[in-house]
């Protein structure tokens, strides 16, 4: 395997990881602050992608499409928080799982009803399409590089928000002791709605950004949701830093596993068998990684014990 191909795949892995971080950050924030497990997070990702594809189709502007994805996902998030989710904070996880499972059914079928079963397509804008040449003569798609940039920017913004701003202080305080900060006069239900909408907006952004690489279709959110779960289990639930480290780790493992494992098995097996064993193992690699992390640290890399 050539070095150039390897570096390309590394970048693909980082790009995938950064996207997973946008999903996982919202999930882990919502769990950390509200103690809620939200299966419908994948639906918010889907809503973002559909909003972006629809607006891009109407207006032709990619920037407008991204704004629409943020707005639509945040609005949908705030709406379900006000109508359904806030009744679930005091319930056990089983009720939360079921109610959010019901929301997935409603969102998925509702989207199918509105947009039909055929996938939509979101075009990469001309100023972001085509390859760029990186130092060392590596050609890499500009759009994927832009995704990495946006993801890292959002990560930095999120860390600043949590560490530096007033609302960040309230979020951290809410994680530690919700009764106490309510007693200190913070409007806790407004805070919860804001956190939920923020997490939803991040998921919607991820959906729109990925929508331009893959097709935009019903059911696109759930595989990503489950990977985001793996990420936050590895990183430790409630930890944004854990989500970032876990996301990059999962992104790299998955991408490199798919490329490297068949090649490794080809060293001592027939090519046909090597590619089938290699690809089967590669599809399981991140779960094996997760099991490994759990055996060492049951509450994740950065989780509180």
């Amino acid at each position, binding site marked *: 395997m050539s070095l150039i191909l390897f570096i390309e795949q590394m970048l693909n892995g980082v790009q995938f990881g950064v996207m997973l971080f946008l999903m996982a950050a919202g999930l882990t924030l919502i769990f950390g602050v509200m103690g809620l497990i939200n299966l419908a997070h994948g639906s918010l990702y889907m809503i973002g992608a559909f909003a972006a594809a629809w607006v891009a189709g109407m207006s032709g502007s990619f920037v407008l499409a991204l704004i629409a994805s943020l707005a639509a996902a945040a609005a949908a998030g705030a709406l379900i928080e006000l109508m*359904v989710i806030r009744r679930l904070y005091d319930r056990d996880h*089983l009720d939360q799982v079921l*109610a959010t499972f019901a929301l997935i059914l*409603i969102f998925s079928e509702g989207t199918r*009803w509105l947009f039909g079963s055929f996938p939509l397509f979101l075009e990469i804008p001309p100023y972001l399409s085509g390859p760029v040449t990186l130092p060392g003569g590596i050609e890499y798609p500009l759009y994927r590089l832009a995704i990495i940039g946006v993801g890292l920017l959002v990560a930095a913004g999120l860390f600043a928000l949590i560490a530096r701003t007033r609302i960040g202080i309230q979020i951290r305080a809410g994680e530690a002791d919700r009764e106490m900060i309510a007693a200190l006069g913070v409007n806790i239900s407004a805070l919860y709605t804001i956190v939920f909408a923020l997490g939803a907006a991040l998921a919607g952004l991820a959906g729109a950004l990925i929508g331009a690489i893959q097709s935009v279709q019903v059911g696109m959110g759930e595989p990503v949701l489950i990977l985001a779960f793996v990420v936050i289990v590895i990183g430790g639930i409630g930890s944004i830093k854990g989500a970032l480290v876990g996301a990059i780790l999962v992104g790299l493992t998955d991408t490199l596993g798919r490329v490297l494992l068949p090649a490794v098995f080809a060293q001592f097996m027939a090519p046909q068998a090597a590619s089938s064993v290699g690809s*089967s193992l590669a599809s*399981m690699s991140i779960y094996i990684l997760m099991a490994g992390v759990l055996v060492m640290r049951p509450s994740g890399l950065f989780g509180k014990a």
Partner: protein
Amino acid sequence: MRREPLLNAAVFLGLLAVVLWARATDEPFTITLATRVAILALAGVGLNLALGLGGLVSLGHAVFFGIGGYAMGILASHAQSYSPLIEWPVLIEGTKSMPVIWLVAMAASGLAALGIGALSLRTSGVYFIMITLAFGQMFYYFAISWPAYGGEDGLSIYVRNGFPGLNTLDPIQFFAICYVILGLALWLFSRLSRSAFGLALGAARQNGERVMAVGIAPYRLRLVAFALSGVITGLAGALFADLNRFVSPTMFSWQTSGEIMVFVILGGVARLFGPVVGAAVFILLEHVLGGLSEFWHIYLGAVLLVVVLFARGGIIGLIAGREVRHD
């Protein structure tokens, strides 16, 4: 509490009555629907053991359902093509005999449940939910990417497997098999829930520390419950595959896990007949709403939301009143 045994008997006999009526009016499709209810209820009984008695919210029971299905698919496809399963070190042939397939399905899903349980039970709460979900996906992607047994397309079996002395191709005889197995599983569940093991398991659900303080290790209790639960769901998977004469990776998908969980919750968690009522209502909704609208999942979602938000204790809880729970 009084009304619950009566309701249970009514539900169990009602299922039988529907089938006998369908038999009398010659409607084999209704018998097939009832068979689906019995099989899915069996899967639910399995999950109810972990979820209801043990408080283990597993969102990965499709793993065992799928393993049961693939046990049937693999054995029957080898028997169908007269190719041995393994030639070395010992010769193992495929089989078309249901009892053998059931044993293999139960053993395989039990072993998988032991392995997954041993890892997952190190954690609890949300971690447990997410990990069981992730293990489910792992098996799903494995089934898709493993080309030997159909990969993404799944496996078809031409003729339903046989049971000694019965003609399984006759819908009512196959229903009878599933019905009897469901009855046995329910009997086992009710015996278990009142046994020393079941009581200790329930105690561990309510307060793990206290159980530990009296000298019982909750981890082992939960692991045994999880494995047993996997065995029952695996058996249901084998029957389900036989009903459809088809297995595919969909049996491993996380929607399947979600649906099995929906049966349990819709009927009532930890209630003996919860999964039976849940599966029957689910199939009924699917049949009725599916006839009304292509997008019947929206209505299913709405029904589910209402049950979760406003009718805690499920349908049995609504009819038979709330059980006094000490947690």
